[in-house]
């Protein structure tokens, strides 16, 4: 059981991490956390090698490098929205017709676009945070022993990955890797890409017609 919860906690934390990085610019607190947490740092192998964090204070690093790269990647030159990647006309669907809004609504999640600073609900950061929310709910259900509910949530996670994130995010993340101007965002994109694929494999194995087999640990 503990192993199951640990596994689940790892998923929660990773979704939280990558959604945060993809949603908005890092702040100094985040950088502090990153530097102090070796586990998190281990997911950023190139960043560790980079000389800038060593030379500059956090504020300067953020303002002169990381924020610039973020703006370039998520605001100016890349389009971090599912609808852009999936619609034939490459238009953003910013309103209620966006398919992911209907999914969020179905499970009573309301996204605050102003807080996300996004023009549409299918922003990469929001979709990843949705996965984080689902994984957290799944964790609670497991903790409470409600395996049926947990399994149902796992099924939603798998479907959302299959039908949405994996339909476009790999392409987007590959582009980020190609365009990134700092090791930080290169590493973040690599992490997200691998993790999503890995997580889909995990969920696919977990969720079967007969249930999720949590009872078996």
């Amino acid at each position, binding site marked *: 059981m503990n192993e199951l919860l640990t596994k689940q906690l790892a998923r929660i934390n990773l979704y939280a991490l990558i959604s945060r990085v993809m949603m*908005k610019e890092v702040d100094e607190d985040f950088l502090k956390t990153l530097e102090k947490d070796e*586990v998190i740092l281990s997911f950023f192998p190139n960043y560790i090698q980079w000389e800038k964090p060593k030379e500059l204070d956090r504020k300067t690093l953020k303002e002169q490098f990381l924020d610039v790269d973020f703006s370039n990647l998520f605001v100016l030159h890349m389009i971090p929205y599912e609808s852009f990647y999936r619609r034939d006309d490459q238009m953003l669907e910013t309103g209620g017709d966006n398919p992911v809004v209907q999914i969020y609504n179905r499970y009573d999640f309301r996204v605050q676009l102003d807080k996300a600073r996004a023009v549409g609900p299918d922003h990469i950061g929001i979709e990843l945070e949705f996965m984080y929310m689902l994984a957290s709910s799944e964790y609670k259900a497991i903790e409470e022993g409600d395996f049926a509910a947990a399994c149902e949530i796992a099924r939603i996670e798998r479907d959302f990955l299959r039908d949405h994130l994996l339909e476009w995010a790999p392409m987007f993340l590959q582009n980020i890797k190609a365009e990134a101007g700092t090791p930080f965002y290169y590493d973040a994109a690599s992490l997200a890409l691998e993790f999503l694929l890995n997580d889909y494999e995990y969920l696919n194995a977990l969720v079967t017609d007969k249930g999720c087999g949590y009872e078996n640990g």
Partner: protein
Amino acid sequence: MINEQRRTFLKGAAFTVAGATLATGVFESVVEASGAESAEFTNTPENLDFYPPLEEWDSFRELDGDDWKRGGIERNGVRSEENPDGILVHDYTIVPSVCSNCEAGCGLTAWVDKKTMTVRKYMGNPLHSGSRGRNCAKGYATESQMYDPDRIPFPIKRAPGSKRGEGKWIRTTWDEALQTIGKKINETLKRGDEISKKMIIYHVGRPNENGFSGRVPHTMGIDGYDSHTNICSAGAREGSIQWANDDRNSPDWANAKLIFLQSSHAADAGHYFQQSAGLIADARKRGAKMVVLDPRLSNSAGIADLWLPVWPGTETALYLYLANRILNEKDINGDDLVDHKFVKDWINWERLMANREYLKFMVTKGYISKMPKDESYESFIELIRELYSPYTKEFVVKECKLEGMEYKLDQLFEIFIDAGPRVATYMWRAGPIAHRGGWMITRAAFLPLALRGALAGDIGGVSWHHWHEVSVGGKGDKATVAGKRPDKVDVWNELAWPPEYPLSTYEMSMILPHLMMDDEWRNKWNARGLKIPDRLAVWIPRMYNPVWINPDGFRWIECLKDESRMELTFNLSPTWSETNWYCDYVLPVGLAGERHDQQSAPTKPEQWTAFRQPVLRVALEKMGWKPKVPYRGTLEAHMKAGLGEVWEENEFFAELLCLHADPDGSLGVRKHWESAKHPGQPVTIKEYYDAAFSLLPKLKKAAKAAYPKSEYPCYEFMRDRGAWTENTNIYRPQEKRLRFDGAYYYAHGHKYPAYDVEKDRFGVLWVEHDGRRKSIGIEIDGELYEGFHTPDKKLDLFCEWLIDWKWPEYALPIYPRSEREYDKMIHIVSHVHHRYMKKDNEFALNTVFRLPYNIHTRSVNSKHLMEISQNHNPVWIYTKDAERLGIKRGDAIKVRIVDTVSGLESGYFVAMAVPTEGTFPGVLACSHHAGRWKLKNAVEIPGFEHELGVMGVGAPLYEMTMDGRVGTLKPKEGIDEGIKSRPKSWQFKEFNKDLDNIWWSGLSGSWQNAVAPVHPDPVAGNHAWHQKVIIEKAGKDDQIGDIWVNYENNFKTYKAWRDELTRPLTSEDRERRPWWIKRPVVPLSKKAYEFRVKDL
């Protein structure tokens, strides 16, 4: 392509911080909505229609706009006692009306909150087939105009003992105003002589209605109507009248293959723009091309397939160049480009070929080299091939200053030819109103269209307005005791139609003060036998602001201040204005949702009409309220709903003319306004409009079916819908068959016995009517048609009557071809032609382009429109011109206006320069829609607790001086400062919580209209708006907004144009004007047209 080494994600569980700390947290948990009350609302509607179905308009519940974005009722539920944090539900009555901010007449719906009896928003009317539920910014701004903090709340009157313009006002009542004005009209009309019938003038700004305004002077039996048209669109109308005897053309934008525009009108700012722009967008989506001719890079030009900037006023040359190529070139198959079938059948070439005398005249003028060999069509084509052959590419490049843009002329020609007959255009303001000879621009513009068959009125082409319009607003006669239209009027008012301008398209209203103050002129004509009054007993502007919008504003002020010339004046006006300041009464009448009008506009090939209504009154009546006095319903409703003592023209004039101007009926006026159903009292709105709308047969049928038990079915039908389309798909209307059964001809709803009908050699059928010969139809190839509205029933390439009316050289579209001809044909050469620009700092000033969010004097009361229009009215100057003169962006420049006929200088205005590539070299642009002013921030009304603010959101405060010769205006305080100096608005607080946010000073425009001298075109009579200017950098004491005007010089300039350019009527003339062309709006008898003067 996952080539990274697999990592153990499991270690993610060992983060020192929890995921919740890392995650941004953009998702919010959900509070369940209270189910039952929310049942009628949903966050996921099946469709997103803006408008509920008509059945729900009387009572429609809608959630407040706040909070929608964050989840709507599913999070917060619906507001109730138990759920005070829920979302407010409005309970609306949706009442249709019509926008009144421009001439397009787009549908509106007012969403009247039943609890507060306020209009919470104005939207479009989906039942209006012209505007299709859409509006521009001006439509939605109606709400801010309605609840303008400075709207005039009750009738006010000049304080006794004060002079006009002193700004001392007292409160009065509608009753007092009716009695005083009624008495004055009664005393004037009672005299009954010719001169008294010229002493009352009703001066109408943009009417936005179809007929009621004309009915007012007509029922008084006077020739007393002045429109604003001669400062607006008279040049274009003159050209249309000469071609088709129709007021304006009417395109089928939606189906055109080429949208061919001169100026930004139609597509982004001008006449009918909101409706036209939608149709143009539809056409372009289907592949139509758009060409824009404009010296200015307008929004339209910016998105056009081809922008052709030509020197302003030389467009005639360009159109004749197109005609030349169409006539003299072949298509790729070697066939003619001329649509010979259309030209042969529907252009009046036979009359030209039959007029030997005129053909000889053409030879002597050098138009053609020799007489045609016969009168055949082929010889005609030969003739016009020669006539237009001088308008070559080389010629037009030089004339229009298109050096370097020769390739664009070829592109234009190709696009034009590719569109075939599907070329849609709308000749309106811009060139035709801007220049001396502007009317010839229109005349020439239609020539290439005619040659290509685009004037056939067919799908995607161009037809004429009156087939696409419905005018019944002046025809509610059946509801009155008279039961029929008044008789024709027997007098001719020289103050509107002076003998110098017999062909003037509309009234010479913009020179009213010049005529009034010109004793020499009046004495001369009176000595020759005319009877021109030396004063006006009553002058009534209606929603009109001539002091500000007309040229030479100081002359207007001089005249209005003179109580011996203007005895009683009152403005029926929803807002304060510069003109109101000099009137005796300001009587507040309603805005777009506060008055009744029937309005129709020719925006597409159909006939739609809309019904403007006082929406609060309609909502109240639907809730069971009834006025105490049935003929004062609108006034009472507005008082009841807290809008103020705001009335409307319809009820005001019915009561004034029935009960006060002619109380005993002895003047013959009363019967036209007295209710047939309730004798003794004025006709009511329901009675009048039921009678008027019942004149439309299809509407009447639909109304009777929808309201079978109603006493006023047509009124109620329009009250509930606000719009109706009587006919659609009106194409080739001139080909409507004229029936002949062997004994009678049936045409235009009349029956003519065959023995009364005479057919001339050109196939035209003539009858005698009112002592005149009138044509009723035409036979072409053995078929009878109703034809066009010209006397010869065809389109008049050859405008034969111009010969008799003293302008023979312009009977055909023509333009000077040499230096010598410039002087001889000066009447059709722009007064801002490049030949007049001699020095580096001399420019043509382009003044008349419209801004999409401002409309002359009608937007000053909307904070929303004023906000988006601030700092948008600089002087555009071409980059290189600015560089040469050392002028930088934001510099104040002094713009001196100089007349090219009199040589006199008018004075200057100071404005802000913005160098741009968007205007033609040598041509400045500054729209004359900005530069409003006031002389006081607020007015104290004795006995009334609040001050009345004056145009607080839209006009800065100025200081004025004038001494009879020179006038000046100097800015004193901006709008932002002015509004802060006053305590919070006392009116409509709920709607004006944001007045603190007013940031604009409004000091970016100048009152350039006042500097401009008035100089009417000698033929069309319209003011030619553009000016020759000399610019220099402003001095250190000059400020943007300053003006200095020598209006004594302006008077001399006006006289120079009149005396040097017009061809006035003489003792040999017997008629005032060609009787067959439009002479708006009061019908005059044959007697009125008679002209007899002696030589002195």
